[in-house]
């Protein structure tokens, strides 16, 4: 896998990168990672079309890309370009009107026209647990403690044993530095802590792919840092992820693969993230990246 190697190189080069990661941490996350690893696996979207009811043109129009197993795709684009919509269709939260979504070459959702007003995709519970998602808003269940939030789905959906699930939950909490907060209520946590718990809640289901939609957009800078560090660790541990973010420095650090969305299309795609940020090929990408720079 070229992407993996490349990232490792970059990490070595990086001088100021804080050395929070440890082999132990990676190990902990690997427990949570997908159980069977194989090179040909991955996650793919082909000719995806998504149209909202009462809208004149599709939000996403013929979008195709592939995320290799163990790599990180960063989705960029201006506000309203459909980044959230893309992640939501992949998660099954929105019906699609064309194209396919597949995991490990197995199609899990197929577009059908005229489904604009349909509800969520009727995927099986099992299938849904294979795709994890964390939202921008702090979406923990306010009526459950931290531990309750994390263990709910494995207990109810995967019917796993309570002791085992709690042990794993604790291990994950330890990895994100929140083991001592396991009995806290969500409202007692800071935004950054909540997002880290939300990540644990998704990870405990061992999703093949994790979708993160601007999970730091509502956070204070310090909290942004503590959450992104967790995500960086996850990437190192080989978690396949699709990330939407406005933190360009972070995007540059974590991306194996970048797509830039605009007007319903992919306007630039790059498998060399470093090159993309340094010398974007299209004018649109240059213009987009300039938004984040002054002087």
């Amino acid at each position, binding site marked *: 896998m070229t992407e993996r190697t490349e990232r490792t190189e970059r990490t070595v080069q990086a001088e100021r990168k804080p050395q929070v990661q440890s082999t132990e941490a990676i190990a902990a996350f690997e427990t949570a990672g997908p159980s069977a690893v194989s090179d040909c696996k991955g996650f793919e979207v082909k000719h995806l079309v998504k149209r909202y009811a009462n809208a004149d043109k599709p939000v996403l129009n013929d979008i195709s890309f592939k995320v290799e197993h163990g790599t990180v795709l960063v989705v960029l684009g201006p506000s309203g370009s459909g980044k959230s919509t893309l992640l939501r269709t992949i998660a099954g939260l929105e019906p699609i009107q064309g194209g396919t979504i597949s995991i490990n070459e197995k199609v899990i959702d197929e577009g059908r026209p005229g489904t604009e007003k349909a509800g*969520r995709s009727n995927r099986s*519970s099992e299938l849904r*647990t294979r795709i994890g998602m964390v939202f921008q*808003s702090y979406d923990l*269940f306010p*009526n459950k403690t931290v531990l309750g939030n994390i263990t709910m789905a494995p207990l109810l959906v995967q019917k796993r044993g309570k002791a085992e699930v709690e042990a794993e939950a604790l291990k994950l909490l330890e990895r994100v530095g929140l083991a001592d907060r396991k009995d806290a*209520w969500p*409202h007692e946590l800071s935004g950054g802590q909540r997002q880290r718990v939300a990540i644990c*809640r998704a990870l405990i*289901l061992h999703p093949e792919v994790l979708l993160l939609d601007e999970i730091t957009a509502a956070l204070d800078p310090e909290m942004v840092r503590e959450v992104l560090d967790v995500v960086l660790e996850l990437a190192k541990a080989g978690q396949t992820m699709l990330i939407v973010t406005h933190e360009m420095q972070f995007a540059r650090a974590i991306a194996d693969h970048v797509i830039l969305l605009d007007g319903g299309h992919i306007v630039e795609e790059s498998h060399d993230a470093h090159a993309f940020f340094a010398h974007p090929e299209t004018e649109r990408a240059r213009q987009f990246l300039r938004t984040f720079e002054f002087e």
Partner: protein
Amino acid sequence: MAFDWSFVQRYAPFFVNGTLMTVFISVFGILLAIAVGLVCAGVEIARVPVARQIVRAYIELSRNTPLLVQLYFLYFGLPKLGVVWSAETCAIVGLGFLGGSYMAEAMRGGLESVPKVQRETAYVLGLTPVQSITRVVLPQAISTAVPGLVANVIFLFKESSVVSAIALADVMYMAKDLIGMYYSTYESLFMLVVAYLVILLPISILGTWLERRFDYARR
């Protein structure tokens, strides 16, 4: 002016009975109101086609007419159609009819206050629709709905004072009766005030406790 304590002592048992009647009518009326409210809120949230319009019409009708008139209609009006309900039944049905719409609104408010992202998260985590409702949505909805529900309960207890008009011997009935028979207006009014305080203060305190108990959904 003389306040006749012996009168109060003599007739206090009447007020105890009246209080029991008020509580009896109110409790069953409120239970009925909650049941009606649940059904209506369910119909509205689930957007059941025709039933939804009926529920809306019922809510408008019930909220915009006074309980006294509703009771008169049930008690004196319905017999002309051949339906004779006992005063107790009329009072409970009347309170249920009035309170049902208030309860429905409070419950609907609670359900709608649960952010969409909570249901989406439940979906993404693989929870079934039933699990999503029972484990995620309802516990949070209750939390938001509780203050409104408690306010409605107090409101309905107070409204029940109207049932004296259909010869139900509640607290209000006792007060008016004693005034009419013995003309001891202050003493009767005093006992009336005390009786309502005895009924409603604990409920008000219980309500505050409940609100705190279910407070977790508010940040």
